[in-house]
């Protein structure tokens, strides 16, 4: 198994600030916006963006939820693995809110489709946008594209994009790993 560094600590830092800045530009004071980190890997990215928005852009009233899409996935009983749910924290209402779905890597688009269905269980948002750190373009199975994107990556099928966060793996970096 070989791996190639796609984004270093420094690159990631710049991209996170840019994404937070784009969110601020689009959503202003965030009073009618809800950020939703997708479990399990989008939550860490969402928390980082929240931190930057609160501490560097001084947005006080920004809300973050965590959405687990396990029960809405379309590969249940189609893969060898049993799909296990993660914690779901959707205390804030989505009704008429502007939603930003946040995930680390956009690949086939199936997780995002599941997330769009899952959000329906909580109400009718006025708008749903998608933010991803990495967009694996040319790998999509569904017509889904990000509104905010950290970096576009061309990867072939036996390559995997791995996002590593300091909180979990002692470093901030993105790698391309050969399966």
């Amino acid at each position, binding site marked *: 198994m070989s791996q190639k560094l796609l984004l270093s600590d420094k690159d990631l830092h710049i991209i996170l600030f840019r994404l937070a800045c784009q969110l601020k530009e689009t959503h202003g004071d965030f009073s009618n916006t809800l950020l939703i980190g997708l479990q399990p890997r989008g939550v860490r990215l969402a928390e980082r963006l929240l931190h930057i928005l609160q501490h560097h852009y001084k947005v006080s009233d920004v809300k973050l939820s965590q959405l687990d899409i396990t*029960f*809405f996935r379309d590969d249940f*009983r189609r893969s060898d693995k049993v799909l296990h749910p993660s914690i779901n924290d959707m205390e804030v209402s989505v009704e008429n809110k502007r939603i930003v779905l946040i995930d680390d890597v956009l690949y086939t688009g199936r997780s995002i489709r599941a997330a769009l269905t899952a959000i329906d269980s909580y*109400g009718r948002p006025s708008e749903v946008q998608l933010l991803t750190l990495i967009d694996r373009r040319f790998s999509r199975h569904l017509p889904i594209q990000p509104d905010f994107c950290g970096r576009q990556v061309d990867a072939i099928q036996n390559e995997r994009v791995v996002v590593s966060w300091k909180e979990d793996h002692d470093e901030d970096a993105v790698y391309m790993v050969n399966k």
Partner: protein
Amino acid sequence: MSELSVKHLLGIKYVTEEDIQLIFDTATQFKEVINRPIKKVPSLRDITIANLFFENSTRTKLSFELAQKRLSADVINFASSMSSLKKGETLIDTVNNILSMKVDMVVMRHSSPGAASFLAQHVNATIINAGDGAHEHPTQALLDTFSIKERLGDVAGKKVVIVGDILHSRVALSNIFALQKLGAQVCVCGPKTLIPKHISSLGVKIETNVQKALAWCDVANILRVQFERMSASYFPSNREYAAFYGITKPMIDALDKEIVIMHPGPINRGVELSSEVVDSNQAIILDQVENGVAIRMAVLYLLAAKS
């Protein structure tokens, strides 16, 4: 632990502690699902489930059916009183006919102990035992222990007394297995005539004095007296049973600690439990019912993943 060690849920005896913990973890997430504005998820949309109830049931049948519908499964219901069993058809023939209609899972309640195991050996579908005679009622034990964990934080180390008609109770046997696998101490309490002869071989304490049993326990699971299964007279009268084994508010108040009161339902108010106790804050009977749906969703989900 990523998946259940069993393909069917026939009894708690056949599952491991890890299986129970996995079911609890999954049920916790499903409990959140059933409290959403829209309580339905699409996980089992390609699964058809037959509920075969050869014995009467209210809450178990409703709870299973609701769990199946919340998971988007297609559901067919069958009650023996309206079936061809009355015309002499065997159990295997009845079930195989139903399975020919492309049914994937069977939830069955039957008056014969071992009926679910028998079916699992002879038909090609995932079987869930919803009660087989006086043998086991695994989902009831799972929801009972889940409710204890929810209320007290853990099951391990807790003292649980099962009071009442132990002899005719499948809930008692499944609860004993589940509680012991999770590390609880178990005591059974009731008139000697309603305690099976060899129950001490399961490693449970036996007590005939209900006040002493209550003083010992953290949780009291009170069972219904199963008049319909009694072929002989096990105690002189309902009134006498209530006088000796009925749990009343003064008995609970006399204890030096707060205990949790459970009942699998249906309750004979004024016999095994007084109305005051049923409606008190210490009773978690309605929590048990809510948890029943989440537990059954978890069992269906995890077994479907293996089918």
